[in-house]
């Protein structure tokens, strides 16, 4: 009892039964029905036992605690085992520690909530072939950029909408969404939804519910597809062009640009700047840069070499997966490292992102929500020494990380360069209607 844990009852023994619930609840969702029933029965039994004890020793209030606690602990241990078998998380880990369990799980339980890439095995319900195909592409990481995923999703939805017919006695504006939601569920099952997709889908829902009831069905569908096209054009493609221009202005003749991972926008910026005849060298990336007709001189370096290279760089250009309203940038794992290093060396860090990547949420670290990179990607890029998970070796490869706002100089968006601290004011400034 010396270690305070989630399972510890509060100091007074009389309320020792309720605290078992919070620890049981989060895990319940993941269990099978049978397991859940078993757990419930156990809890009921424990409660009954406690009550009986309390009734027996009503005179001495201290007594119930001592027999009650071990029993509870045992129960906690059991629940934790169940939770582990269901492949779940922090609570369980804490419980394990509490029970002094030396049995360290092989499955890194604190990270088990990270979205795992999973093959789409079965197709449930009425899923459009375009969505099935897209789901496969997502789960295989054939389409993986934030922009690419959003555009692919919207394009697939266009064909879904075109192939949809409103059943009799329904209106399109009411029924189409119920038709789309299983499609969305299917995509999310293939890979967790990205913020960009979320924003786009929210906008699409809005447009669907706004569509006129009296409109001819085909016209309404065309109008929706048109709206989707406009969204892709305005929020992504044209936004990219504006970003390209703005960021291009910040690249001076002779600059050395450092970039990390591969962002479609950063790639465009660098190629665009090259076309304007500025000379600079990019590091760290992209066959495309050197492979073009007008190659940019590049140095490709590994992340461990960053400290010795960062002093050479004049600007760091990064892409983003999503931006949160506290100014944090959610991007490919390793970005935070590069940004921090650059900040430490006084190199300005520019994050290029369209405003449709802004999320209203707040994210404080990269643990609360993340994805695990598929083994295939890891294998392809890692060194030849084969690292296979074994009894004592676990591989953890999160796909994203979070760069706090303090390490970012500016965010380049289509509405201008803005400091990360004012990201939260952008949706308001844009009138809130299009985010």
């Amino acid at each position, binding site marked *: 009892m010396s270690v305070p844990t989630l399972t510890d009852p509060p100091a007074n023994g009389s309320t020792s039964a309720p605290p078992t619930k919070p620890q049981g609840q989060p895990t319940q969702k993941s269990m099978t029905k049978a397991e859940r029933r078993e757990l419930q029965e156990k809890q009921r039994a424990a409660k009954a036992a406690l009550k009986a004890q309390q009734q027996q020793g009503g005179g001495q209030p201290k007594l119930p605690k001592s027999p009650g606690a071990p029993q509870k602990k045992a129960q906690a241990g059991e629940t934790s085992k169940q939770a582990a078998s269901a492949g779940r998380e922090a609570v369980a880990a804490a419980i394990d520690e509490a029970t002094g369990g030396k049995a360290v799980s092989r499955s890194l339980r604190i990270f088990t909530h990270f979205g795992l890439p999973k093959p789409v095995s079965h197709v449930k319900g009425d899923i459009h072939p375009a969505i099935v195909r897209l789901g496969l592409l997502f789960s295989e990481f054939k389409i993986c950029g934030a922009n690419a995923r959003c555009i692919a999703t919207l394009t697939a939805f266009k064909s879904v909408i075109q192939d949809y017919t409103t059943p009799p006695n329904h209106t399109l504006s009411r029924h189409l969404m119920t038709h789309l939601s299983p499609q969305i569920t299917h995509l999310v099952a293939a890979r967790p939804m990205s913020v960009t997709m979320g924003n786009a889908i929210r906008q699409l829902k809005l447009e669907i519910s706004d569509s006129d009831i009296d409109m001819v069905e085909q016209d309404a569908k065309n109008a929706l597809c048109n709206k989707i096209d406009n969204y892709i054009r305005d929020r992504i493609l044209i936004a990219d062009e504006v970003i390209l221009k703005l960021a291009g202005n*910040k690249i*001076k003749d002779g600059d050395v640009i450092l970039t990390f991972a591969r962002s479609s926008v950063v790639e465009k910026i660098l190629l665009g700047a090259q076309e304007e005849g500025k000379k600079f060298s990019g590091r760290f990336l992209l066959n495309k840069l050197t492979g073009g007709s007008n190659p940019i001189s590049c140095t490709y370096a590994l992340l461990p070499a960053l400290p010795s290279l960062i002093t050479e760089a004049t*600007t760091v250009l990064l892409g983003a997966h999503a931006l949160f309203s506290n100014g944090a940038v959610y991007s490919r794992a390793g970005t935070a490292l590069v940004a921090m290093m650059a900040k430490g060396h006084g190199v*300005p860090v*520019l994050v290029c992102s369209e405003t449709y990547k802004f999320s209203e949420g707040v994210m404080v670290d990269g643990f609360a929500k993340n994805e695990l990179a598929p083994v295939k990607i890891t294998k392809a890029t890692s060194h030849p020494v084969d690292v296979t998970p074994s009894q004592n070796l676990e591989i953890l490869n999160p796909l994203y990380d979070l760069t706090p706002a303090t390490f970012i*100089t*500016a965010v380049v968006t289509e*509405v*201008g*360069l*803005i*400091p990360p*601290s*004012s990201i939260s*004011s*952008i949706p*308001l*400034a*844009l009138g809130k209607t299009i985010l």
Partner: protein
Amino acid sequence: MTLYHPIAPSQKSGGEDVVKFDIYATFQRILQDDQMSPPLAAILTLTEVIENSNAGTMFELVKALNEGAEVLKRQAPNPISPNAGCELFIAFVTLFPHDSAAKQNFSDLKRELIRQGQQYAKEALTYRQKIADLAVGFIKDGSVILTHSYSRVVMQTLLLAHKRKRISVFVTEARPRGLGIKTAEALTAAGIPCSVILDAAVAYVMDKVDFVLVGSEAVVESGGLVNAVGSNQIAIIAKAANKPFYALAESYKFHRLFPLSQYDLPSHNSKIFSFTQTFERDPGNLLNQPSNNPSGSAAENQEKSNDSLAGSPAKFTQEHICQSNPDVDYTRPDLISLVFSDVGSLTPEGVSQYLVGMFAD
């Protein structure tokens, strides 16, 4: 962004406007007024551009204004602060409700724009008083204040504070322009205890100071500050000594600009801090030339430098040093405690949010 309708004759007339009407001279003339700051002068200059323009449509008018702003930017020694004014005014003209004006004559609209511009400039002159009222609340009795160079709004604040509280002021000399002397003279005349310190003595004096109060050329989108060179180092020293660093800025100095570093400012050019230039010019002519005639004739310089090529030690005059040094520098937002402006006392984040809100539409 804007739709482009190339109408040959109107374009031509727009170009002639600029030629006929000397924008920079107008700008200089307006600046003669002691109370006038460059952004306001730029706004007034642009109202005169409207007056002299024979543009018949909004599109032409905005184009003429943009051209005028461009000329001003090229000719002004420090493009940043007039730019802030131009930007503000052009944004205002672009967003000015046309529809209501479309009914009436276009020249009426122009007259209205001119009137609005002039009224704004007039109104803006009262902003300093507002700022002084705000900032005085932060000045405690017996404060020791460090200020940099000369700023009208800082002067007004200090004079107001002097009426109510006992203050003493350290003023940096603020080379190269030496405007700190002007501040010191004005303050002494008003009876404020005042001492001029060297720019290099800021760190020495910092422990005696309660807070730093500076004016500004422009406040930029990052929440940072563009001000007479030396402000940045004062801010760094103040930060290191944990002293508050306050900036005073009228809202017309808010500028949609995001410098990433000192060298990203529009005022930066290749002449600043070039290694070769000073040496090419210098040897020879400095030994016998009075320092107030820096350039001399190029041919003479060449000759002399050829003559005394060997052995003559390179010398630097004030003028040469000035030429290869910046006028303004950029202070990062994290070094600034508060920005007092007529729209309120803002944190640097607040400034950037205000700016994003002001121009994002």
